[in-house]
C-alpha cells in the first residue's frame, strides 16, 4: 500500500476512533469540554462582557433581560460580567493550588517514602493537619496572617497537602520493593537518580488524577472562604464574594446568588468529571480517596 492510501485510511478512521473514545470516556470529554469552554470565556471576557466593577445606581436589582443577561446586583453592577470575570479567579486559583499541592506532596512524599526519619516526623504533622477541619485551618491562617491573595492561596493549599503526601508515599513504598528499583540500588545508583528515573514516573498518573480533585476542592474552599469574608478581598469579583454580597437580596433578586452559584457548581462538577474520566483512563484500579 502506498503512503497516500495509508494516510487516507487514517483520516477515514479518525471519526470512528473519536466516536469510540467518546463512548468509552464520556465523563472525560464532557468535563474537559465544559472546562475548555469556561477557560475560553474567562480569557476572552474583555471582548464580550461589560465592566464587572462599574456601578449603575439607576439600574439596581434588575432581573435578567436581553440587555443584562444575568441581571444586575444591589449596586447596579452587571452580574454576567462579574460571573465571567469571577471564573478567572476560580480557575487561576484552582490550578495554582493544584500544582502547588501536588508539587509539595511529591517532594514530601518522596522523602517520606525513602527516609525513615523524615517519614516519622512529616507523617505525624500530616496526621495533625488532617485532624483540623480544612476550612477552620484556612480561616485561622487568613485571619491571623494578614497578607492578601498569597496567604489565601497558602491557606487553601496547606489543608490539601496531607492527602497528596500520603498518596505519593504509598506509591513510593510500593515501588521501592520492585526488582528494578532494587537492581538500581544494587547497581550503586545515587538516591536522587533512583527517585527521578525509577520512582517518579510511577507517580505521574495517580498525581494527575489527584491534581484534578485538589483543583475542584480548592475552588470550593476559596468560594467558601470568600463567602465567609475570609478569602479574596471583597472588592474583587469572585463567585464567593458575589454570593456573600447578595445574601440580603435572596427574596427579591435570586439571580444575584444563583448565577454565580450555578457557575461554581458547573465548574466544580466539570473538574470532578474530568478527574473521574482521567482515573478510568489512566488507572482503572485507582479509586477515589475519601
Amino acid at each position, binding site marked *: 500500500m502506498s503512503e497516500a492510501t495509508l494516510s487516507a485510511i487514517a483520516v477515514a478512521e479518525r471519526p470512528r476512533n473519536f466516536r469510540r473514545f467518546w463512548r468509552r470516556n464520556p465523563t472525560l470529554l464532557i468535563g474537559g469540554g465544559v472546562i475548555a469552554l469556561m477557560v475560553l470565556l474567562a480569557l476572552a471576557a474583555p471582548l464580550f462582557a461589560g465592566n464587572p466593577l462599574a456601578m449603575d445606581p439607576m439600574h439596581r436589582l434588575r432581573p435578567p433581560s436581553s440587555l443584562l443577561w444575568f441581571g444586575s446586583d444591589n449596586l447596579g453592577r452587571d452580574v454576567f460580567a462579574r460571573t465571567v470575570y469571577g471564573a478567572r479567579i476560580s480557575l487561576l486559583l484552582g490550578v495554582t493550588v493544584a500544582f502547588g499541592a501536588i508539587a509539595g506532596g511529591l517532594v514530601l512524599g518522596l522523602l517520606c517514602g525513602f527516609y525513615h526519619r523524615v517519614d516519622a516526623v512529616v507523617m505525624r504533622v500530616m496526621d495533625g493537619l488532617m485532624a483540623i477541619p480544612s476550612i477552620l485551618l484556612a*480561616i485561622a491562617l487568613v485571619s491571623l496572617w494578614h497578607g492578601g491573595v498569597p496567604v489565601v492561596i497558602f491557606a487553601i493549599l496547606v489543608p490539601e497537602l496531607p492527602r497528596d503526601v500520603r498518596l505519593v508515599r504509598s506509591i513510593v513504598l510500593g515501588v521501592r520493593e520492585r526488582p528494578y528499583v532494587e537492581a538500581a540500588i544494587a547497581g550503586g545508583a545515587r538516591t536522587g537518580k533512583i527517585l527521578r528515573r525509577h520512582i517518579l514516573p510511577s507517580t505521574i498518573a495517580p498525581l494527575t488524577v489527584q491534581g484534578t480533585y485538589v483543583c475542584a476542592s480548592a475552588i470550593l474552599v476559596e468560594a467558601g472562604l470568600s463567602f465567609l469574608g475570609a478569602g479574596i478581598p471583597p472588592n474583587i469579583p469572585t463567585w464567593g464574594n458575589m454570593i456573600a454580597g447578595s445574601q440580603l437580596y435572596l427574596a427579591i433578586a435570586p439571580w444575584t446568588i444563583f448565577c454565580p452559584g450555578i457557575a461554581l*457548581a458547573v465548574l466544580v462538577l466539570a473538574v470532578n468529571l474530568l478527574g473521574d474520566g482521567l482515573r478510568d483512563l489512566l488507572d482503572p484500579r485507582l479509586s477515589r480517596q475519601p
Partner: protein
Amino acid sequence: MGGYIARRLASTLVVMAIVGIIVFLLVHLAPGSPAAIIAGDNASPAQIDMISHQLGLDEPLPVQFGIWAWNILRGNFGTSIFSGAPVMQLVVGRLPATVSLSLVTIVFAATIAVTAGVLAAWRAGGVLDRCLMGIAALGFSVPVFVVGYFLIYLFAITLHWLPVQGYVALSSGVWPWLSHLVLPALALGLAYLALIARITRASMLEVLSEDYIRTARAKGASSLSQLFHHALRNAGVPIATVIGIGIALLISGVVLTETVFNIPGIGRLTVDAITNRDYPIIQGVMVIFSGAYVVINLLVDLSYSLIDPRISR
C-alpha cells in the same frame, strides 16, 4: 484487643498533641504579636509591652506552649478579646445549636446514603444506580451555601413550607426545633451523603460477589434479607470508617451552613471571630472541633469489632 485499644489511644493522644502544636504556632508565628491584636490599632508600644508581659508573651515559646496546653487540659481556653468572656463559656452556649444540626444531619444523611448505596449496588449499572451516582457526583460539586440558598428560596420563600432561617431550642417543642433544622441538614448533608453512598455502593459490590451471598440466595433468602442481613453487615467496616472520616467534611460545612441559615452555633461564633481577629476563639474552636473529630474516629475504630466480630481476633 486490649493491646489494640491501647495503641489506638496512644496514637490519638499523639495526634491531639500535634494539633495543639500546630494551633499554637499558627498564632505565635503570625506576623504581629497577639498583644498588638488585643491592644488594638491605636495602642502605644508601651501598652503593647504591658499586655505582652501580662499574657506571658515574653517567656520562651516552649514555656508559653506548656502553659497554654496545661490550661486547655483544665478546660481553660482563654478569654475572648472582643467580649471578654471565657472562650469555654461562649462555646458551651453555642453547643446545643451545633450539636442539634450535626446530629440531625448525620442521622438523616447516613440513613439515606446507606439505603441508596445498597440499592445502587443491588441493581448496579441500572437506571437507579446511574441516577443515584449522578446525584452523588452532584453532591460533591455543589457547595453547601449554594444548595442552602436554593433550598431557602424554594421551600421557605416560594412555597412557605418551612421557616427561612434561625434556630429554635428543643425545649420549645420538637416540631419547631426540627422544622428549623430540615433545610440546613439537607444542605449540609448533601456532600456527606454522596461520600457515604459511594463507599456503601463500592463496599456492597465487593461483598455481593462473595460465595455466601450465592448460598443465601440458593437457600431462598429474600432480596431484602440478602442485602441488609447477609451483605450489609459484612460491608459495614468501610461504611463506618467513611461515616467517621466524613465528619471532617461535615465540620467544615457546619461553619458555612450556620452562616447561611443564621444558626447561632459554634460555626457562627468562629465566623464572627474572623472580623475581630479574636484569636483565642479561633484557637479554641480549632482544638475542640479537631478533638471531636479525633474522638469520633477513635470510637468508630473501636466499634469495628462490634460490626465485624472477625476483627477482634
